């Protein structure tokens, strides 16, 4: 803030009846908030329930897979994966994916989703809490803890997206639509043609600030308090959207996930976003499982690869934390329609900042049941191990993000005792 600007601002504060010590004094008058500089959290959702035996937990026995046999299973470092190159319809095969990313990928197999239905499963995997509608998703929680003042702190493109009233969710269906609103104080988006003279805008902002401050000193209902503060924050912080414009690509990719990735990356790069839920659906392959999964898994992997590669182009790859998940798995056997129904055991994958790759933890047995896992030693323990459920993973994610002890996270406890927490999971 320049000296003259600061002097004018202080004068305005006085005119607007605004105490200098008001918490919003550093913003509100043409000073967009500081860019958020990472880490950036991305949760990929294979919505509908993926077949993990065609990806990171291959079987090839007991009639579980028709497209390959046990002997066809491939490896890359510590990873074992199903061969899909011959069957993939577009997108990226497992061979290509693990070759490129296996070294930085952590896989957990034998995750107990615990339920067999989409809606509770999606909620459980997104929040780590099965029996509450009030909990925020991990992406929302980390956005609230790390950068709730970012105008697009939490982006979502589908899947379960509850926020716990901690942060606003943003849906940006079409990146160029941000262009039209980023310069909201200019007529037709022309920065040289402001609606108001600058001194008028300053007065308006200062008076809104003073009004907000005056409201803060009055008794308010909790809802009103939350709503008014979020509204004020949204308007003030919205100015930072101007930074996105320069990162809006001229040409949009055609693929579903790539489009979502571009919006998230532009927002990350501009420092206006902390986390994003990226999602594609139709994995619910009750009929023709193999055909559907061979179309969708490669599309899904290609979307992940697109995000990571584009992040590298933008110089933010090292700041990404990527969670790759689905709300359930598919049964070990085929139904009469060549499909697979819901299965409550599955896997999740992770890569990015703070995550040591080339590792596979946990396991399923030959019938695709979860093998108990010791959270302390990070080894399977058929006799005394635990069933690892979403709350264990979320507790670990909170620790990875450094928010486990944040007051907002503590408002939403996951109920995992210290001795049952995953230790050394990320490294």
């Amino acid at each position, binding site marked *: 803030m320049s000296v003259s600007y600061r002097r004018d601002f202080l004068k305005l504060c006085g005119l607007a*009846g605004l105490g200098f010590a008001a918490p919003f004094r550093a913003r509100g008058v043409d000073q967009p908030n500081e860019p958020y500089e990472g880490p950036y959290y991305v949760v990929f959702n294979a919505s509908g329930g993926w077949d993990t035996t065609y990806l990171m937990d291959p079987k090839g026995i007991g009639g579980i897979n028709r497209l390959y046999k046990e002997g066809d299973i491939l490896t890359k470092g510590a990873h074992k994966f199903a061969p899909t190159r011959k069957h993939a319809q577009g997108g990226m095969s497992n061979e290509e994916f693990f070759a490129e990313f296996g070294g930085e990928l952590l896989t957990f197999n034998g995750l107990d989703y615990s339920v067999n239905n989409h809606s509770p499963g999606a909620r459980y995997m997104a929040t780590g809490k099965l029996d509450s509608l009030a909990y925020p998703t991990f992406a929302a929680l980390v956005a609230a803890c790390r950068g709730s003042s970012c105008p697009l702190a939490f982006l979502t493109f589908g899947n379960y997206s509850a926020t716990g009233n901690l942060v606003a969710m943003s849906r940006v269906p079409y990146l160029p639509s941000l262009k039209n609103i980023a310069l909201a104080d200019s007529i037709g988006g022309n920065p040289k043609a402001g609606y108001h003279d600058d001194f008028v805008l300053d007065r308006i902002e200062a008076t809104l600030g003073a009004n907000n401050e005056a409201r803060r000193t009055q008794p308010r209902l909790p*809802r009103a308090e939350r709503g008014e503060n979020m509204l004020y924050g949204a308007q003030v912080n919205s100015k930072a959207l101007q930074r996105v414009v320069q990162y809006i690509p001229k040409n949009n990719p055609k693929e579903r996930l790539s489009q979502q990735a571009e919006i998230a990356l532009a927002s990350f790069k501009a420092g206006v976003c902390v986390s994003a839920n990226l999602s594609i659906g139709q994995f619910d392959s009750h009929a023709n499982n193999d055909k559907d999964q061979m179309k969708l898994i490669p599309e899904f992997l290609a979307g992940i690869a697109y995000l990571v590669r584009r992040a590298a182009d933008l110089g933010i790859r090292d700041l990404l934390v990527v969670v790759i998940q689905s709300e359930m798995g598919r049964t070990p056997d085929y139904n009469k329609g060549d499909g697979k129904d819901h299965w409550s055991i599955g896997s999740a994958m992770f890569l990015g900042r703070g995550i040591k790759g080339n590792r596979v933890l946990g396991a399923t047995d030959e019938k695709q049941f979860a093998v108990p896992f010791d959270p302390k030693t990070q080894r399977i323990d058929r006799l005394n191990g635990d069933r690892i459920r979403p709350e264990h993973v979320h507790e670990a994610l909170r620790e990875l993000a450094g928010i486990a002890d944040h007051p907002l996270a503590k408002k939403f406890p996951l109920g995992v005792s210290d001795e049952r927490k995953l230790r050394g999971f990320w490294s």
Partner: protein
Amino acid sequence: MTAVAFLIAFSLFADESAKPRVRCAGVADDSFERDVWAKVGVAKCLTCHRNGGDAEKSAFLLTDPRKTADSARDAVMQGNRAAFAKMAAAKERDQPRMLLKAVGDLDHGGEQVLGKGSPEYRVLADFVRRVNGQSTKTPPAIDPKAPPFFHGVTMLDDRRVLRRATLSLAGRLPTDAEFAAVAKEGRSALPRLLDDLMKEDAFFDRLREGFNDVFLTLGVDGNPDQTCLSYEHFEKTRHWYAKHDLSHIKDKDKRQHEEWKIAREYREALLGEPMKLIEHIVRHDRPFTEIVTADYIMVSPYTARGYGMFDEVKGKFKNPNDPFEYAPVKLKALKGRGKQENQDSATGFYPHAGILSTFQYLTRYPTTETNRNRLRARMFYLHFLGVDVLELAARVSDAAAATAKYKTPTMEAAECVVCHKTLDPVSGLFQDYWRFAEQGVYGKRKGGWFADMFGAGFEGEDLPPKERWRSLQWLGERTARDPRFAVAMTEHVYYILTGRKVLLPPKDFDDSLYAARLRAYSEQRKQTEAIAARFANTGFNLKQVFKDWIVSDFYRVDGLATEATEPCRRAELDDVGIVRLLAPEQLERKVTAIFGEPWGKLQEHTAMLYGGIDSKEVTDRAADPSGAMGAIQRAISNDVACKHTARDFASPGAKRKLFPRIEPEVLPGASPDDDRRIREQISFLHERILGRHDDPGSAEVTRTFDLFAGIVNDAKGRKGIEGRETYHCRPHDKDDPGASADDKRYTIRAWRGVVTYLLRRPEFLYE
């Protein structure tokens, strides 16, 4: 943490204040209902131990009080308590039989339902001890000083309630006559005024919009003339527009455009039918149970052509060329291209059952070979009985093992049977609507309905075979009689009025604020049930529900008289107050009500950015504003103020909507009289735009006055300031006397700044 984030976080945790506080109430001694029943009975036992449940033949039989008329609830709860007490007193191997059963011992049919040592187990164990005279624990005593729930909460005055309801339901401001009526008669005038308001077309627009947020029938995939009207039954008529005689339009391009327009309007009319049924029922004060029992659908002249019945019904329309005029009609039983596609019907008519049997509803919630109508059954329970069977699904110890252990887990594994025994019979009632994707709606499954599902029926009552042809009517009749129906509809109206769902009972018994949250839920539930009871007792007129909610404390809440800082009191009040961020459609209507025309840009992508829904993939409206929405709010405030300020000043004073009490020549600080006039004008704007009644001498008005005066004074000292209003903000009619927008003293632009400021205030953007 940045400053605004700090401000928000501060508000979440700040709980210290020297001001007088409103304390939370103690908890009454309702320990059976509050603890045992709420935590264990409803959640764990009732699903099986009830008539029609999996354990209906056991000695431990309970009754669901939610399915009981209000007057009988106490008796039902006493019966449930007696059943619990009897079971709690029974012993097996010297141990309480009830506790053994709960952990899956004694061959409990439901296997393990409580973990030993879990909070629920502890609640049950304590109850058992109390029944057996062993408990030393004293239930929480009634706090004799417990204040009423709304103690310390301020309510809107009648004038502001009228404004809130009128904007919400009719998208306009109240008239002077309406304001005068409440000024004279007080709140007693509201029901009459609301009755009149609920005859306006704008109310029905809002009604349809609100109920679409619930049923989402506008979200049918694809072109509805293909997805809703099947090739099998409507192949000759569904594309009528392609053969419609447009020969009177000689120009080929114009003729083509007209055909596209007709097709577009036809599809829109077709999608609109279910919500038009709701409008018809409410407009004509028919019992709202007709949404599941109506033996007719609503068709327009265009959609009647799609059904192939236009010639039969055209006499029902005032204007047979109006695509959006609707009339009630009965479809004949469907006739297929092949005999096997003909619909069974004892009457010769399609067995309409309100919305339930409409092609749009059935298409919006389609089925598949493996889903077996379970989605439809789930949505039926959610939409018409207010029960989300998947919402709070219980976690089982090993769902995969249960799936693998049984040949038909949904009929054998206790943890699956719990839900499927309820869900699958309703799925069976939809069995003759068995077509997938774009293959139509009506049709029977080859080889008959699934044998590995519980048979068709509802809540323990089997569907008689002779009723199969009208199975959805059979379901609708029972739904209308179910006490949960009235409650569910009351909850839908609450959702339409507030933008959020009613509270669910808290589940986390170890939460230190559990009692406070339970009280909040119970108070709201009590109000919901009271309104639902009145709804049922007055012939299911939905308007009564709107009126009852609007005059209730829950709708009229405005703020707090004194600080509520105690966490438990804040938890009690957490959901109290409307404080609803207006949806894009509502915001456009509010702009129209105040300024005479909509902003017009909250459409498509921008509407979605502003938290709107598409009824397909995005089905929940945003509740909190993101930064993108904040930017849109800035754009709206700038643009609307730009468009209307100079234009309003250009009109004669008496015709002005915004500035009837001031002229641009009046300057701040020029004289006390001028300042008074400016303050009165600001007071007027506060009322018109914000709905606030601020005295011209109030701090609120002073703040706005300072903004206005500050801008005018700042402009005085600046060089290079134009003597006219900005080009884009001038009136566009060049013949208009105010077109030049002379503004040498900068007052028009200062007033524009004031309007911009007011349009960014929460009172404008929230309801």
